[in-house]
Structure formats: structure tokens, C-alpha cells
């Protein structure tokens, strides 16, 4: 959807006016749906040229101190605080540069960025600049994994097709994923990149041994799911959540159902699941549910494929299910 047509608070974030009661130690406590909201028509003031240049001209501006010559990007000051406030001048910057340090990668994002994860955010020193510009980082090759962008990696500023005059109008990708012409071009837009489309993996034919492993793994997962549904703490991990998931492995396909605290696994194919999990070896998923390695990490390491990035959120909940079950078992043991 166009950025320009979006509401400043998307409708899906807004809960209904409602309250509920939670009972603890035989006492009732009230929970009220609520919000603190303030709307702004915010002045961008002296920063306007920077954001207008991004929006209207696909240019990046910095500011240069007339005394010491330091070039700051973004141009956050009109006067240099290091030179007794000597004036600065706006200058146009190159649109490629090197990473100042290795950037982090966000897998579990804030509620506003759940649909954008995983993404990197780091600081690039554009050619000719002395300070670093904070940018979102992506790869055109799929999910961003550790090691792909490091300190010193050359990256290129890419402009969103729809720009509204905000810092999110730009992001960076490694120049190694671009053609020399794209690297040289000023104002390169996201639609000009060759984004690799998500593709469901294909598995080889299963052996007899694979089929036996599948059967055994499924049985163990079903038993675990039953335990999780009975665990007060584990149920909390999927409270209020509903998903039907088709799980495809080399040796067979089954279904996982999450329904407001209940977790069920059935040996059946789903016609229209909410999303698909594909993993060649069902033990990858079994290990995750047994708390012997995070399912999230299996997605990151490409051992497990999901059809929708947004469903990382459900994957996190599956990891929490496993952790909460183990925590409850530990607490029970400690109480004895």
C-alpha cells in the first residue's frame, strides 16, 4: 500500500473499548483496553532541506563546518558545536559508503516493525562524510543473515518508490549485489533492484529410514503438543493466538493448530493454511519444540523455510511454547 494513503496509526493496531477481569488468589482484578495517543503536524524546521532532498530529488545532503571542515551526515546542526558554533553549509553527498561497524540484525521487532523483520540497521559513512548515517539494511537475496554485511562492507543508498519525506524513504543494500551501473546511478529506486522472490524448497524422495524418522518425530511432537496444551505456563505463550500451519517435510506433511492456548498436531494435509513451514528433516522442528535449539534460528540458518516473513511472530511463539514448558517443569521441581 502507498505510504501516502496509510493512516498514522494503522487500524489493526487499535483495540476495541473493552475490559476484562483476571482472578488471582481468589481476588478479581480489572484490565482495561486503553491508549495514550497524540497527533502531530510536526515541523521539520532546519532539517527540511535534508528530507525534501530525499523525497523530491533523491539526493542526500550533509553539512560542512566552515571552520574545521567536518562533514556531518545527517546534517543535524546548523552551527558546529566543536568550533564555537561556526556556521555549517549544506553539501550534497555521494550515495554509497562503507559500514562504520558491523550492523545488528533485528529478528524480533517492536510491534510497529513486526512486518519488516528481519532487517539490519547500522551506520554508513558515505563517501566524503565524517559521521555516520543510520540506515535500514536489506539484502536482495532473501533473509539477512549474520556475516553478510560487516564493518567496511560497501553499501548503496536505495530510495523507496513512494517517498513521504522521512528517513524510512531510504535504505541500503550491499553494492556487491548490484551491477556497476546501479552502483554508479544516483537516486536508485527499490523497484530497479532484482529482489529474489521467496521460493518453497523442494525435497528429494524419502528413503525408508526417512519415513520411519518422520513417523517417530510426528508421534513425539504430538505428545509434546499435548503436554504444552496442559501446561498453564506454556498456554500463555499462545494466548489469544490462532493459526493453522501446514508443515511439509521430506517424508510427509502434517498440520499444526494453535488456538488460544491449545496446541495440536494432526497427521493431515491442509488445503488453505495460514502459512507453510517447510523443513527437510522433521527433527529440526522436533528439536525446537523440545527446547534443544531455537526454531527461530533454524529459519535464520535456512534449515526451516516459512512462506510469510510476518509469521516469524508465530515462530517466536512456538519457541516460547517450548521454553515455557521447560520453565514450568523446573519450577515444579524447585517447589518440591
Amino acid at each position: 500500500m502507498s505510504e501516502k494513503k496509510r493512516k498514522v496509526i494503522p487500524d489493526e493496531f487499535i483495540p476495541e473499548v473493552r475490559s476484562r477481569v483476571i482472578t488471582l488468589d481468589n481476588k478479581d482484578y480489572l484490565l482495561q483496553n486503553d491508549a495514550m495517543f497524540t497527533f502531530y503536524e510536526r515541523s521539520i524546521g532546519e532539517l527540511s532541506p535534508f528530507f525534501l532532498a530525499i523525497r523530491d530529488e533523491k539526493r542526500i545532503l550533509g553539512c560542512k563546518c566552515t571552520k574545521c571542515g567536518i562533514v556531518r551526515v545527517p546534517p543535524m546542526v546548523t552551527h558546529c558545536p566543536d568550533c564555537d558554533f561556526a556556521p555549517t553549509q549544506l553539501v550534497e553527498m555521494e550515495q554509497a559508503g562503507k559500514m562504520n561497524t558491523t550492523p545488528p540484525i533485528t529478528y524480533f521487532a517492536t510491534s510497529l516493525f513486526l512486518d519488516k523483520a528481519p532487517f539490519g540497521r547500522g551506520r554508513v559513512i558515505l563517501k566524503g562524510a565524517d559521521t555516520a548515517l543510520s540506515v535500514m539494511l536489506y539484502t536482495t537475496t532473501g533473509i539477512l543473515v549474520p556475516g553478510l554485511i560487516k564493518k567496511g562492507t560497501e553499501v548503496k543508498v536505495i530510495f523507496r518508490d513512494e517517498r513521504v519525506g522521512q528517513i524510512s524513504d531510504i535504505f541500503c543494500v550491499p553494492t556487491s549485489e548490484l551491477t556497476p551501473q546501479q552502483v554508479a546511478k544516483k537516486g536508485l529506486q527499490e523497484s530497479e533492484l532484482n529482489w529474489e522472490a521467496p521460493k518453497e524448497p523442494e525435497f528429494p524422495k524419502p528413503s525408508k529410514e526417512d519415513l520411519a524418522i518422520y513417523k517417530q518425530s510426528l508421534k513425539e511432537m504430538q505428545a509434546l503438543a499435548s503436554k504444552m496444551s496442559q501446561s498453564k505456563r506454556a498456554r500463555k505463550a499462545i494466548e489469544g493466538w490462532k493459526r493453522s500451519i501446514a508443515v511439509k517435510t521430506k517424508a510427509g506433511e502434517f498440520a499444526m493448530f494453535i488456538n488460544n492456548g491449545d496446541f495440536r498436531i494432526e497427521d493431515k494435509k491442509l488445503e488453505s493454511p495460514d502459512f507453510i513451514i517447510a523443513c527437510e528433516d522433521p527433527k529440526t522442528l522436533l528439536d525446537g519444540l523440545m527446547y534443544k535449539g531455537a526454531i527461530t534460528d533454524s529459519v535464520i540458518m535456512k534449515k526451516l523455510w516459512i512462506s510469510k516473513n510476518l509469521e516469524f511472530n508465530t515462530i517466536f511463539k512456538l519457541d516460547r511454547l517450548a521454553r515455557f514448558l521447560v520453565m514450568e517443569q523446573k519450577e515444579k521441581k524447585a517447589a518440591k
Partner: protein
Amino acid sequence: MAKKVGIVGAAVTPFKGKWYQKTYYELAQMATREAVKDANISIKDVDAVFYGIYNDIFERACIPEHPLQGIIGMQNKFGIRISNGGATGAYTISAAHAYLAGERFKTALVLGVEKATDCFDFTSMSATPEVIKTIAWSGDCFFEQKIGWSASDSYAEIVLGYMDEYPGTLKPKVTAQISSLLSKQVRTNPYAQRQFDQVTPEEVMNSRYIVYPFKELEICVYSEGAAALILAEEETARAIARNSGKPIVWITGVGEANEHSYAGKNQKNMSHIVSDYLGSHRAYEMAGIKDPTKSIQIVELHDAFIQQLEISMAEFGLVPYETVDSLVEDGIMMPDGRLIVNPCGGLVYCGHAVGASNIMSAWSARNELIKRKMKTALVHGTGSTVAQYTACAILEHE
């Protein structure tokens, strides 16, 4: 000559993932009630209150401290709120210390409180994404909020910057052992959110990535709770101590620093936490500590992330930068090691009720100094984007 200032009373409420049973009004009063009881004084004996509350949105009110003034019995007296990101609690101690040392007051209440997990994301039906979104309003509002800035990714920038400069440090096996150690230490803290969550290093290493390079069991947990200290200048402190029968723990040094929030030439050094270096060394200087490796016995540091705990220890001068993993590999902070680090379980296991956290750390350091009959502890708070803010205090048991 500034007046000597000491801690004569302290208390915390239980730290919980969610306090359904109490609002921040009651949590604040609970900690206050217990702190004055610990000092064996009346709230009427307290001259001033210093509130540590980090984030208005958590409490769902601007100036959230205003109802507390009467609720805690401090009406018609001096009250001021400190809000310095994650370092709020440590800065609140520092502010109260300054007023007492400057002879404005004889006694002060340092009160930290936070109610974080009322925030709730109705799209994922869980609190955490909304809690971290609320914290994410603390990022740079022109250049970073709109591109996914979060507390975790901004601290991860520093950790990765450190690893760029000192390759081979902050090894996952080491951070996993530290997390596991803290989970064992928390077992004796009945106020902790995760008192019974003892984990093995393998569990830490197997836990999921939240923000690379941080795994779930290497990150502090958001809590709700309150903590309070009663501070007094020397003569008053001695009189209170005589009455309560409890020893005074003196605050002999405080130090603070806030760095640049931008990176690059003449800006923030992204491979270090310079604020931790400056804050700790300023506190050492004030306390007359020449060699912290010989003087400091207990460290209660703000472990927002385990990797940052290691970096902070290096910035404090307690372990070399290049061999920071010797904290574990040479047993420096392991059982029977030279240093006791976060005996309360730290913020990773006791919990992070932001405005109250560093005050909880001071509560723990005081208890440990008295219990173990030790002399010197370092209390630390870090906060804001890229670990920009630091405040430290040196506590000494007479």
C-alpha cells in the same frame, strides 16, 4: 567541604513480569513503607524525595510522580523526578547525593518505580512487542525511530563494534556461562522475577536470536516493581544508624557521563562505552580509589545484555579489553573469583523495572557488603541509545 552521605535504609518490592494486583501508586508506596521501616524512621523524618521513573508512556501519564507525593506522605516537601533512560536509577542516586552533600537536606528518599508491561500489542496478543515499541520512542525522533531503532539493536551496535575492534572476544560460550552463573545467583533473591529460572550454558546458546548477536537468555527481562533508599548526611546517618542498629553504607564516590548519540569522527566511538569509562573513573577519583582491581569487591552493574556486562567491566578497568573473556576463562567473576558480580541475579534474572533497577542494584550491593562483611562495591547504570548515558556510585561499608 561536601558532606558525607550514607545509605541508612533500603527496600524493594518483588519484581514481576506483570503486577496485576498493584498500580505504580501502590508499588511506590510499598517500597517507601519498607525503606523507612528498614531505617526505623518515620516518613515525616524525610526531607526530600527523588523519583526515578524512566518513561511516561509506561505509567500512562506525563509527570507520573505527581500523585506519588501525597501517596508516599511527602506532601509539602521537595520532590524532583530524574529520567535518564536506563541509567535513571543511578542518576537519581547521584542527584540525591548532590543535594545532601551540598547540605540542602539532611535526609532523602530515593524512589524508583516502573510499570512496564501494561503496554500490550493487540496484533500479536502479547506485551513484549509493545513494551519495546514504547522504549523505541526513546530513539532519535528524526533519524532513527522510523527505521526500527530499538534498545536492543542500539546496544547490539556497540557490542558488534567492540567485536570489530577486539576480534575473538565476547565468545558465545563465555556469555552463555555468565548468563548461567547469574541464573544461579538469583536463586537466593526472593524478590527476583526469575528466581527459579536456572539455566545451563547450553540452554543459553540454544535460545533464539532476538537481535543479532543477542540471544533471548542474554537479554534483561522487563519487569514491574519499585525500589527505595533512605539517604542521610553524616550526622543524621549516624543518629539513624544508632537507632536502627544497622550499619551505614557510605556513598563515597559518584561519577556520570553522557556521550554523543551520533557516530563517526569527533562523535561517539561505537566500539566502546566511553560513558562507562568516564563515569566509573570519576567515581573512583572521588572515592580515592587508585586501582579498582584492588579495591572493588562487589559490582552491581546494569546488565541490559550479557555482552554489554563484559564490555562495562572492561570500561570500569576491572579486566583488560583484549582479554575481557578472562572474566570467565580465568574465573575472575566465577564462584571464588576475585569479584562478585550481580549477586542479585542482575537485570537479566532479577528483572529490569527501569527506573527502579539501579536502585535495586544499590539495595543489593548494600545488603551484600553488610552480609559478607566486605568494604567496597560499585553500582552502575547505563542507558539511552548506544549506551550513551552512565552513572556510577561507589559504596563503602565502614
